[in-house]
């Protein structure tokens, strides 16, 4: 075991030197975040199986790398803590120390402290905060670790004493704000995220507790009073602020190969065009080749934006664990399809909705262990997240084996909120979708409605913003499954191209319900001038795009136009366009960001004819305040 220099035990303020190479620090940060993730995963794995030598090794290496990187940049405050943890794990590696939940807890706390350091360093290096000395208390934590390491040397000892210690630990944990002075072990003032306060040590910790003399060690009481820095949700912030991308070398090689092929194909075409007696079909063949290569090139380039969903899912593991511990529930999270790849931008926006769903599942889905046993279920609940690709989408299923949704109560609630007419029949699917409505969850007594609902409208909003869909399935007593279907990338959409006033516009296909000829239905003008389209007993407000776009100086279209039903935010509206031109996969681009356009235009796309087509935002179109038939008033 490496000796710990005494001077490293105390508080060490962290100061970023003025001449520090920013690039090096950024590299350190991105690497540190990766190591922190490894540490979290490793610690959680060790909690399940404390004897896993490989797991201990992984953790050891992660702390070691962390220490080395921090030491290189002379971030002593960081490296000394990492060094202590490394020593602790070395003890475990050499079987001098038994990993138990208390040690796992300390590892996790140290990890959070390290992350806090990294956050601070990042904020300062990116200029979000002014350069200043960072004072994050680490002494108590380091003292605890030291105590653990030294305690590990005297393995076999008085069991009673040991139990007393752990009881104290457990007791002090429940009141983390004011730890008793005689339990310095827990006085480590690790800033606790509001969502994940200190976790009460499980009662069974005592059995596995390593013997230790319960002598209190020196801990600076001042630390306890030190205000815990606000963490906010930074626990779940990934390293995305730094826009460095790790790309599989395989993909990179593929890209380079393709670029080579592209150049060859190009020179072939140049040659065949310039020499006089080359037949057209040789040129056509070369062009075919070029087409194939450019398609492949696009595919490879797109795939570089794809990252495995692993990191996002793994973050949920910690969340589920902490939440369950807080509520004295037993929950295990089963992950499947962690290697499923999805666009970076999508991955970044998935964390929030997933966290909400996990929170709901733990809070309301999974029952108390006793209640579960009474129902004949295993006392530990299971939440599963499955991710897989299906027909151009990524599908994420979040399921639990809890109590399920209570249809009757949802119905009652929906009626009382006016979402549903009393006595009207509704399919189960539509009924369950009610819980996604804003207002459904925030209403009073929401927790009484069979649970679910807290923040589900947030999930719905997030997923809709990603152009995805949610489906809910639930069986009373057996659990609930949320299925999210999301596009693989936000950069490409399936677009329906429509013509209005000689221009082409794009509607995202996923929001288009159907289209039909105006002659096949009745258009009624209501008093006041608003028009509605009657379609299979449904009355839809009509929006004449030509009028809305204020196209005045063009002759009216030759035909009657075409009606298109669009749907967004649960609202439907009928658009009248001049013609349907076709369907195309389009790459979304912004309109230059020089000024803001009308909200109904959400971006642009280069169409087949080389011109720009504007993308219409269905959300804005259905929420548009309909003015009275503008053209009629104008004439």
């Amino acid at each position, binding site marked *: 075991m490496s000796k710990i220099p005494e001077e490293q035990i105390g508080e060490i303020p962290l100061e970023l030197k003025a001449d520090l190479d920013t690039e090096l620090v950024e590299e350190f940060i991105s690497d540190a975040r990766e190591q922190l993730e490894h540490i979290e995963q490793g610690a959680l794995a060790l909690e399940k199986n404390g004897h896993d030598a490989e797991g201990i090794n992984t953790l050891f290496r992660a702390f070691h790398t962390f220490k080395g990187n921090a030491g290189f940049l002379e971030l002593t405050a960081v490296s000394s803590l990492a060094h202590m943890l490394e020593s602790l794990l070395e003890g475990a590696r050499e079987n001098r120390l038994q990993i138990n939940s208390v040690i796992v807890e300390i590892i996790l706390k140290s990890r959070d402290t390290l992350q806090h350091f990294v956050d601070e360093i990042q904020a300062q290096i990116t200029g979000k905060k002014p350069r200043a000395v960072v004072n994050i208390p680490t002494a108590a934590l380091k003292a605890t670790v030291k105590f653990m390491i030294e305690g590990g040397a005297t393995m076999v000892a008085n069991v009673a004493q040991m139990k007393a210690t752990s009881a104290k630990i457990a007791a002090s944990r429940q009141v983390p704000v004011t730890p008793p002075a005689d339990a310095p072990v827990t006085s480590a003032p690790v800033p606790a995220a509001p969502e994940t306060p200190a976790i009460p040590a499980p009662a069974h910790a005592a059995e596995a507790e390593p013997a230790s003399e319960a002598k209190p060690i020196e801990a600076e009481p001042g630390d306890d009073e030190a205000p815990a820095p606000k963490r906010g949700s930074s626990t779940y912030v990934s390293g995305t602020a730094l826009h460095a991308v790790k790309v599989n070398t395989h993909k990179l090689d593929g890209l380079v190969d393709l670029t080579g092929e592209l150049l060859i194909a190009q020179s072939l075409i140049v040659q065949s065009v310039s020499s006089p007696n080359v037949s057209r079909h040789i040129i056509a063949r070369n062009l075919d080749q070029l087409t194939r290569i450019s398609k492949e090139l696009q595919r490879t380039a797109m795939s570089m934006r794809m990252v495995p969903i692993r990191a996002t899912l793994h973050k949920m593991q910690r969340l589920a664990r902490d939440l369950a511990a807080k509520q004295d529930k037993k929950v295990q999270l089963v992950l499947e399809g962690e290697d499923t790849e999805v666009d970076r931008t999508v991955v970044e926006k998935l964390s929030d909705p997933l966290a909400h769903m996990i929170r709901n599942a733990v809070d309301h889905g999974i029952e108390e262990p006793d209640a579960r046993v009474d129902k004949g279920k295993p006392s530990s609940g299971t939440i599963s997240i499955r991710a897989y690709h299906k027909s151009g989408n990524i599908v994420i299923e979040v399921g639990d084996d809890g109590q399920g949704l209570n249809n009757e109560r949802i119905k009652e609630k929906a009626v009382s909120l006016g979402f549903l007419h009393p006595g009207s029949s509704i399919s189960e699917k539509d009924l369950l979708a009610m819980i996604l409505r804003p207002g459904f969850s925030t209403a009073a007594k929401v927790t009484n409605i069979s649970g679910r609902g807290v923040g589900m409208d947030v999930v719905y909003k997030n997923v809709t913003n990603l152009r995805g869909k949610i489906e809910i399935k639930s069986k009373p007593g057996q659990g609930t499954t949320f299925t999210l279907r999301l596009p693989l990338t936000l950069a490409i959409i399936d677009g329906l191209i429509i013509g209005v006033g000689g221009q082409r516009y794009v509607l995202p296909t996923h929001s288009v319900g159907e289209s039909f000829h105006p002659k096949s239905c009745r258009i009624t003008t209501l008093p006041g001038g608003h028009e509605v389209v009657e379609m299979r007993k449904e009355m839809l407000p009509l929006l004449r795009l030509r009028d809305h776009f204020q196209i005045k100086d063009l002759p009216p279209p030759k035909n009657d136009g075409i009606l298109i039903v669009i749907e967004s935010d649960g609202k439907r509206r009928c658009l009248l366009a001049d013609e349907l031109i076709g369907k195309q996969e389009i790459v979304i681009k912004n309109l230059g960001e020089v000024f803001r356009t009308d909200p109904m235009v959400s971006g642009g796309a280069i169409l087949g004819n080389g*011109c*720009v087509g504007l993308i219409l935002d269905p959300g804005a179109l259905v929420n548009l305040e309909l003015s009275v038939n503008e053209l009629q008033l104008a004439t």
Partner: protein
Amino acid sequence: MPAPALFLDDPARAKAAGKYLTFVLGGAGFGIPILKVREIIRLLEITPIPRMPDYVRGVINLRGRIVPVIDLRMKLGLPNPVTTNRTCIIVTHIQIGDATKLMGLIVDALDEVYQINAEDIEPAPDFGKGTAHSHIRNMAKAKGQVKALLDIDRIVQDDDALLPPEAVLAATA
């Protein structure tokens, strides 16, 4: 010789000096700093954006990038924009918040690139508040003609009819 009050002080004048791309709008001469110019392209098909002020002509496809285009003649309130075979688009770099973006300007015809020296620059006369000419910062004499030197960064920013892009709002919030 003591400088009259109307003249710029020397540092400001020295700062304004440099190479300018000059062009013609409705018969009058204008100039923009050459460093603001990315490229000059012929007038190509412009996709109009509905419900925007008239002088926002729309967007073009500049080799896969979408670039908004404004009609400088209409913007400056010059009469009768006529499109001729000399009409072209100057693609410029403009400063929006912290970012540099591209914007196209439709002009009647290009003139040439002039070196405008500090002593040839005078501040624009005060046209009065609320005129359309707040983006004319300086006037310059070049080869016996007066050119209005435009501050193109302000053309879009000072316009109440146009809202700043989301990115700027987010940055200032």
